[in-house]
């Protein structure tokens, strides 16, 4: 089976999952009628519609002919990049809460930069330091963003 076939299948499956889940949760809210819609009416409708579209998408993957233009294969999983970006954001949240803006900014940029294979420790640290200096100046002193420069919120 071509890769495309499998991809649309998953695409459809995801829509079915989300739509079905939404419809399920929404059905527990009061429904009402069309002319007097309760909180559950519209979301259930949407959930069902999404699930149906999901079925169609997944189904079309099985039966549609492969398109003329070649589809690029899915990119190789790039765990380093993904983990660093995700980690950087998470660390920002954590450190902004408990350690202050300077720490949060530095670590966020540092870790994210490390996600790129062409960035080494020193380059990432330098970039992080530069952005931290600029960022703290701009966001804390000029724009008064409510994250303490040091210390917990």
């Amino acid at each position, binding site marked *: 089976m071509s890769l495309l076939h499998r991809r649309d299948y998953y695409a459809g499956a995801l829509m079915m999952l989300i739509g079905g889940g939404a419809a399920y949760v929404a059905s527990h809210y009061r429904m009402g009628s069309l002319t007097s819609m309760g909180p559950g009416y519209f979301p259930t409708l949407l959930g069902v519609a999404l699930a149906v579209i999901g079925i169609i998408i997944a189904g079309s993957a099985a039966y549609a002919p492969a398109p003329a233009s070649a589809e690029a294969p899915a990119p190789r999983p790039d765990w380093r990049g993904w983990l660093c970006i995700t980690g950087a954001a998470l660390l920002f949240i954590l450190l902004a809460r408990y350690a202050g803006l300077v720490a949060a900014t530095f670590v966020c940029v540092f870790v994210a930069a490390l996600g790129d294979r062409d960035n080494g420790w020193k380059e990432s640290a330098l970039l992080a330091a530069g952005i931290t200096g600029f960022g703290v100046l701009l966001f804390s002193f000029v724009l008064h963003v409510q994250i303490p420069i040091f*210390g917990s919120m």
Partner: protein
Amino acid sequence: MNFWQRSVRQILLALLGLFAIVAPAAAQDSYPNQPIHVVIGFAAGSGADTLTRYFTDKLQALAKQPVIVDNKPGATGNIALRAVTEAKPDGYTLLFSANSNMAGSRYLFKDLPFDTVKDFVPIASFAQIAFIVVVSPKSPINSIADLTAFLKKKQGALSGYTNQTAQLSTEYYKQLAGVTTTPVSYKATPDAMRDIVEGQLDFMIIDGTFGAPQVRQGQLKALAVTTAQRSPSLPDVPTMQEAGVANFDFSPWWVAYAPKGTPQPIVDKLQGWMLQITELPETADFLKDVGAVPQHDTGPQADARLKAELPKWETLVKAAGIEPQ
């Protein structure tokens, strides 16, 4: 790494080290020696925000420290409440909130992670906002008596509301006057304005901060104010009680709070300042613009006042048929 990069790095590390030493050594001798944050559960630009900013501006002059407004809107004010309970009780995080929030939340929500009476220390009350009963300027109704009679006759009359406080006050009126209406909710005040002026809605009880200027400029017709006394901003408009709805007194009053555990000397200092501000004639003038009057309860007085109101809120929420979340 070349010499330049190394030097920059060393300097940065040194600076970081210096900051780390200096920062925590905040002298505790006299309050306040840092900016004070006032948290409110409303978005910037709302009536509550405008009200707050007047007071924080005045407080800043007295405290000689910046007083910053932290808008933490959401969950009908609960996000702000929670944020303040989680803050350090050192007098640098305060809350401005209305009784409608403090009392109402108890009965509108189950399982809140805080107790609105026990977890907050009232500092002083400072303003009371009138809500106004309005109809379209084109409407033939001219008084509450007219309105009640009209509602008793009309099937399926429509009343609007933009927030829970307005909703509850409408229910209160309906209860006392013995009428029923179909309530229509609005997320945004402009939509409600449009429908009331066009006559789609039969009446509305609206926030004075927004409503008073509209009434004064002729965009809306006011039938009554919900406070027990007439509002200085609309002196010609009778109160609900004068208009015949006995015992009607429903208008949010605002209190400054500190989290539980804030040292009493700091609370007393803040109380002194707040009472000073509310005594200013300028304050009365400003509040008049936004359909409000100053309040002068001390912390303990505000506390007692709130506690006395709790049963009324409980009945109101039940009567309005609102399910606790």
